[in-house]
């Protein structure tokens, strides 16, 4: 065994010639990865993490090119290899587990032959029994039963597919594994399982590992060294301990402090409590009456009843992993998706049976912030169209100048410069700016209820706290009640007055956040909280307890009945 570093990047620069001139994606990157070390690349989208990894694989997308520098893989100069030599190097010496790897399996092939393809391409044809032995070994090593190889990709869950991709990556014992956000599409529970598999297997074959990601918590739990990238430059590099405990660069400090923790300091500063807008009716603002939603034979939401009074502004959080029915609830509240059974009442009016005038009034009073800020603006119009149009439509505009003034005030309130932002086209703004504009839009219309469906899950980590405090201000300063739908327990802990945890369409635990998230009682809530990766070296998954067993918890969660942890004034959840 040689002591040579697995990967040495010297003065690496990568550039993309574009119609607007040459863009430097990576600038003078110097990095060494030792054998058996796990190195995390962390940074925002566009910081050059993936580009660097692709350059190591010689798989840069056209027209990108390595402008200068060298890439050395255990003594081999990667940039000097011919196309055929590079082909042989890929997988056998460097394995790349791409982003969204679960979609990279061939849907019409069984798992086994997909694993065999890699072996045959590098080592030539061999006995079927030998192939089978090796693929079984690879599958077992990632914790999958050997018979998984005979299944088709669609028969596996997301986490299993991700593990198959890891098996595919390690089947030839590479010197270096590059995992590009391997868990970005998975929920926290599965994320933990997959990351532990990846770390175990890496330790077993003793290769180097590059883990690309944007989640400081996940990095803290998984890697030895951390490289922080910003705009193509390596701004900080060191052991995880150094970086987490004593970050030097302000950007790293931002990244660490932007991860909200359960308990600890709040990133919000509640200043004043605004009164809710005066209401003419004594009916609750929003009431669910035994609402149930079925998609075919699947029940997305089991009968649920609650009433949100709305006399004092409140934030109600609905928490759950994907498939828990939380987004279905959101679209039912907005009237986009009629319930299969039961009624949704807005100030005593059935949302499904409104006439045109009532419907316009309902729209004016119930607004939303959606998950994807990129899709929310019509690419044909300047962004102010999205703010101006509803303002006029709801009869709020008195004059052109009044509209303009309202837009500018709303932009100011969310921390955007109206002169810079309002007259641009959507593609000229970043995701964070767009999402803040959507919040500004909600502010301008001052609805009585805002439904925020995963408002920050597609925004870069450093901006999440800012946008959440913008949303919190809507309640705090403008008296808007908010239903906050999220998978992120830590933010729900801070912003909400009441939390409902949803699991397979049932409420499993509900109550004030300090109790539900602070001291969870239902096994499912406990599992969720213990699966969150914290950016804290002393706090491993499962809280560091040795007897922590996620499988048992999950099995218990199926059986345990719902836990109700006390009420808050103004919100009543019917107990089932």
């Amino acid at each position, binding site marked *: 065994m040689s002591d040579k570093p697995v990967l040495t990047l010297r003065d690496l620069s990568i550039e993309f010639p574009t119609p*607007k001139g040459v863009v430097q994606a990576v600038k003078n990157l110097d990095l060494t990865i030792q054998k058996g070390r796990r190195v995390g690349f962390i940074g925002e989208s566009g910081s050059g993490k993936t580009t660097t990894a692709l350059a190591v694989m010689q798989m840069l997308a056209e027209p990108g090119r390595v402008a200068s520098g060298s890439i050395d893989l255990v003594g081999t100069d990667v940039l000097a290899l011919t196309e055929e030599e590079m082909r042989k190097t890929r997988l056998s010496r460097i394995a790349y587990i791409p982003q969204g790897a679960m979609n990279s399996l061939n849907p019409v092939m069984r798992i086994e032959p997909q694993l065999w393809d890699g072996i045959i391409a590098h080592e030539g044809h061999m006995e079927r029994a030998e192939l089978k032995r090796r693929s079984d070994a690879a599958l077992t090593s990632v914790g999958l039963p050997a018979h998984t190889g005979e299944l088709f990709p669609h028969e596996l869950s997301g986490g299993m597919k991700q593990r198959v991709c890891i098996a595919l990556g390690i089947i030839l014992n590479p010197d270096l594994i590059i995992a590009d956000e391997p868990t970005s599409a998975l929920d926290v529970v599965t994320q933990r399982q997959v990351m532990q598999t990846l770390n175990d297997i890496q330790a077993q074959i003793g290769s180097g590992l590059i883990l690309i990601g944007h989640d400081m918590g996940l990095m803290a739990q998984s890697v030895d060294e951390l490289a922080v990238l910003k705009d193509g430059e390596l701004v900080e590099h060191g052991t995880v301990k150094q970086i987490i405990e004593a970050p030097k660069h302000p950007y790293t400090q931002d990244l660490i402090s932007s991860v909200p923790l359960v308990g600890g300091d709040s990133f919000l500063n509640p200043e004043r409590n605004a009164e809710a807008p005066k209401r003419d009716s004594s009916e609750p603002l929003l009431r669910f009456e035994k609402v149930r939603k079925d998609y075919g034979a699947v029940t997305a939401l089991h009968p649920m009843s609650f009433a949100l009074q709305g006399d004092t502004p409140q934030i109600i959080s609905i928490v759950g992993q994907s498939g828990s029915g939380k987004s279905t609830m959101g679209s039912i509240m*907005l009237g986009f998706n009629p319930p299969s059974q039961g009624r949704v009442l807005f100030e005593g009016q059935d949302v499904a049976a409104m006439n045109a005038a009532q419907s316009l009034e309902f729209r004016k009073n119930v607004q939303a912030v*959606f998950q994807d800020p990129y899709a*929310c*603006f019509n690419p044909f119009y300047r962004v102010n169209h999205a703010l101006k149009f509803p303002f006029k*439509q*709801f009869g709020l505009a008195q004059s052109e100048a009044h509209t303009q003034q309202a837009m500018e005030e709303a932009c100011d309130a969310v921390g955007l410069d109206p002169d810079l932002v309002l007259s641009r086209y959507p593609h000229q*703004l970043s995701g964070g700016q767009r999402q803040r504009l959507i919040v500004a839009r909600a502010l301008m219309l001052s609805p009585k209820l805002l439904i925020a469906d995963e408002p920050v899950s597609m925004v870069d980590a450093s901006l999440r706290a800012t946008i959440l405090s913008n949303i919190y201000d809507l309640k705090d300063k403008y008296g808007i009640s908010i239903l906050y739908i999220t998978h992120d327990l830590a933010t729900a802990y801070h912003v909400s007055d009441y939390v409902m945890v949803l699991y397979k369409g049932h409420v499993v635990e509900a109550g004030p956040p300090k109790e539900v998230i602070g001291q969870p009682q239902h096994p499912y809530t406990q599992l969720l909280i213990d699966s969150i990766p914290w950016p804290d070296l002393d706090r491993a998954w499962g809280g560091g307890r040795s007897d922590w067993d996620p499988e048992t918890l999950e099995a218990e969660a199926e059986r345990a009945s719902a836990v109700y942890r006390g009420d808050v004034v103004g919100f009543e959840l019917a107990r089932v």
Partner: protein
Amino acid sequence: MPNYSTDDNAAEAETPVSMTRAERRQARRIRRFDNPWMNPKLIWGVSLLMGIIALGLIGRVLWDPELVFTGSAPLKLPPLGFENLRGQPGVLDHPLGTDGGGRDMLALIIIGAPNTLFVGLLASLIGMSIGIFLGFSAGFLGGRIDDTIRVLADVMITIPPLLILVVFQSAFGDVTLTIMALLIAGFVWQSPTRLIRAQVLSMKQSGYVQMAQLSGASTGHIMFKEMLPNLVPYLFGSFIASVTTSIVTAVGLEVLGLGPQRIPTLGRTIYEAINAGALIQNLWWWWGIPTLLLATMFIGLLLINLGLDEVSNPRLRKLS
């Protein structure tokens, strides 16, 4: 002054600091190229079609349109600089020669080429309008209406238009250009309908349409103000494709001797040439010139279509 965040400049493009002369030249070329509507394919295609229209307009002023009538000129004269089988040279009075009925070829194409183009444009304009209307209705309203429109379009797409049109036209006898365009329009609405329906279905799920719904927008507003502008590149592309189809269909009918009997069109000229044995008599200019013009027209349409592809699909733009 409020404290603005720092990511305002995140979307700004980076500008290179110093460049060599070659790079500057490339940057200039790129900048010109940056306006997708100014791509060479589109410019060439439009120029070719405009040339044919200009030929029709200017020709009417500079040349005598009366020469399209039978017997207005000597028979079977070759173009200028050629000799026909009887040894007659081409004359300046009829620079492109004359046909077997004593009609001047230049006058024939001056009148005929715009007629052919007119049929194509009118037919696909009507076809597209039907397509937009049905496509939007099917995609947006869904349910029973969608089923009906989709089945209708799918059934119509399998019927060969020429077969039906031949029957129709023989029944009608002589038709005007407009009626022929109307008949052809009945066969070019299916693919725009399917295309627009598919686009509308995917757009209906998009965030900005949901936002518009939240803003209390009416169905009409969502269809025509939010969705339609984003469909423009597709609509253009589909329009050009159906102009091509319409012209092919119209020429096909004319070459069979159907279609307008007394109005000169390129297809009818070819029909008469074939009928009079122009191929055996080596009167190549009689069928050759209209064929050449048709070819130019199709090449022009093809270039426009390719050019529009680049407009609607930025990935096709190359940094040449």
